[in-house]
């Protein structure tokens, strides 16, 4: 019984991965594949935020800064020092994580929303440095000519080819996150979110683990930034600001914080929403903002959390109605 269930789970996983691999073949249109690539990169950042906020209960409103740090690290290492993409990718994650540690260690020992506040500040400072430190970062002009990744002598230069690279990285990160969540470490994170004092009494080193959750999430953002730089081939300080930090947080929350599929659902939902609202032209952002408020008001646990609840409620109502009909006999 257990063995067959395991087998069926693996079969489902393989089928799922196979289905995603067909996505670019089905989409065909380069623009759509590009959107899918950008969405997967955003999912990596959102997965980190889900670990930090959904599982560990800490809020960061400046994650785009770590994303930017990853992107610039990778861009500078490959264009100035001639590193290969494969070395720059982990290095970007590492640099972002070190910055995360420097910010997280002092602020997370305090109770309350200090990380949220500090992260806003970090977000703004990083953007201003990228803009004004012309020698290092190219200033407002950004960095051009970031090379495409090479694999076995081939250059991955099209959206189509890059899709599989980004998907592989996303899959790894998704798997690692899942492993963390199921491990004792993940349960300790959950304990912190639910009741800090109780967690502390059970011997959880809350300050250290909060920092760890933050560092992991910033490392994810750094890796995502590296992929982003090599996907675009060009980066500038614009596009890593408060708006972007908040945008990714919104996606993670709309999808459902603390649910495995939350970040994936949220990014897909809001990306598709934003693209289809282009039809409304000037009103695009009005509709987008209203949609965000509606999702928060009617699905406070996000799609992944609230839809199953709504379905249960609906089913229960149907069942009750059925029972009532049966009763008179």
């Amino acid at each position: 019984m257990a063995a067959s269930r395991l087998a069926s789970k693996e079969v489902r996983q393989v089928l799922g991965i196979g289905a995603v691999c067909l996505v670019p073949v089905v989409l065909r249109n380069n623009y759509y594949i590009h959107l899918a690539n950008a969405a997967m990169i955003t999912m990596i950042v959102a997965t980190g935020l889900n670990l930090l906020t959904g599982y560990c209960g800490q809020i960061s409103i400046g994650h785009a800064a770590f994303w930017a740090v990853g992107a610039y690290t990778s861009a500078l290492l490959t264009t100035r020092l001639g590193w290969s993409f494969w070395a720059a990718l982990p290095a970007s994650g590492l640099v972002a994580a070190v910055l995360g540690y420097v910010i997280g260690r002092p602020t997370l020992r305090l109770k309350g929303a200090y990380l949220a506040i500090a992260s806003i500040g970090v977000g703004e400072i990083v953007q201003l440095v990228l803009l004004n430190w012309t020698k290092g970062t190219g200033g407002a002009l950004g960095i051009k000519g970031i090379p495409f990744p090479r694999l076995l002598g081939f250059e991955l230069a099209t959206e189509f080819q890059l899709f599989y690279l980004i998907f592989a990285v996303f899959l790894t990160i998704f798997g690692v996150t899942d492993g963390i969540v199921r491990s004792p470490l993940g349960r300790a994170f959950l304990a912190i979110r639910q009741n800090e004092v109780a967690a502390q009494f059970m011997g959880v080193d809350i300050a250290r683990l909060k920092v760890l959750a933050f560092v992991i999430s910033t490392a994810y953002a750094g890796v995502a930034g590296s992929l982003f730089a090599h996907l675009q081939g060009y980066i500038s300080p614009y596009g890593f600001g408060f708006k972007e930090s908040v945008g990714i947080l919104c996606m993670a929350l709309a999808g459902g914080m603390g649910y495995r599929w939350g970040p994936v659902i949220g990014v897909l939902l809001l990306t598709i929403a934003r693209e289809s609202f282009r039809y409304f032209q000037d009103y695009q952002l009005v509709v987008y903002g209203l949609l965000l408020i509606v999702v928060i008001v009617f699905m406070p646990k996000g799609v992944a959390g609230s839809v199953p609840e709504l379905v249960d409620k609906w089913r229960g109502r149907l069942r009750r109605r059925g029972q009532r009909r049966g009763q008179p006999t």
Partner: protein
Amino acid sequence: MQFSVSDLVQIILSGVAMGSIYALMALGFTIIYNALRLINFAQGDMFMLGATFGLTLFVMWRLPFSVAFLLAGLGVAVVGMIIERTVFRPLRRYPVLNLIIATIGISITLRALALIIWGSQALLFPPVFGDKPITVGKLVLMPHYLWIIGIAVVVIALLQAFFTLTLPGKAMRATAQNRDAAALMGINVFRMDSLASAISAGLGGFGGVLIAPVFFVTTEMGALAGLKGFAAAVLGGFGTIPGAIVGGLVLGVSESLAASVVSAYRDAVAFVILIAVLLWRPGGIMGRKTR
């Protein structure tokens, strides 16, 4: 770089003027936080609405500036009240993060609506406070800075009188201290929420109309102003009224001083100070030391 005394006075004066605007913003954050325990990221957009309302009333409808100023502030207060009634109240029992994201949704919506109404171009607000500098001995002073400081002082004094002298003001403070006890004493706490939201939005609005004649009016002007007002509130000690005022002034003056030395990093000053305060004195300048 050499500064004469006159330069220094001017730098400090403009710093105090900007500081009073930050103080108004910070008070807005503080009042709504005390009532609803919520960081309102739409506060910057109240600032923007104040400026755009003021522009429409003063330039298009040709009302005198004093009337336009009052009506713009009141108009923004009404917007704040509507937001409380339609968004904050239904969300009261949800986690804080949901409320914060809802305020971000409001911010996106308002900014997009403003873009449709007022367009994406920077609009010029005529210099109502006169553009001829006043010379006192060797000092050269810009009149609009003096007006901004004067009006901000009046607004803050009125606010203080409201909180200490009137019954609704006292009721609001009681609600902030202990919501359940206040409700048991017969205070309509929901009405207090509405009032707090209106006052905090109105303060943002007044800040916006005051600054409009100095800078251009754009629909994006609220973004940075909102973050800086928030930084000022934290800097002074989040959740306290004197803290918001002191934080605003300290931020304004240090920004002005820093801008005269390294102008490119002018906007970073607020956030560097913010992080430094969080590291060494998380309770803020006026706050108690908290751990």
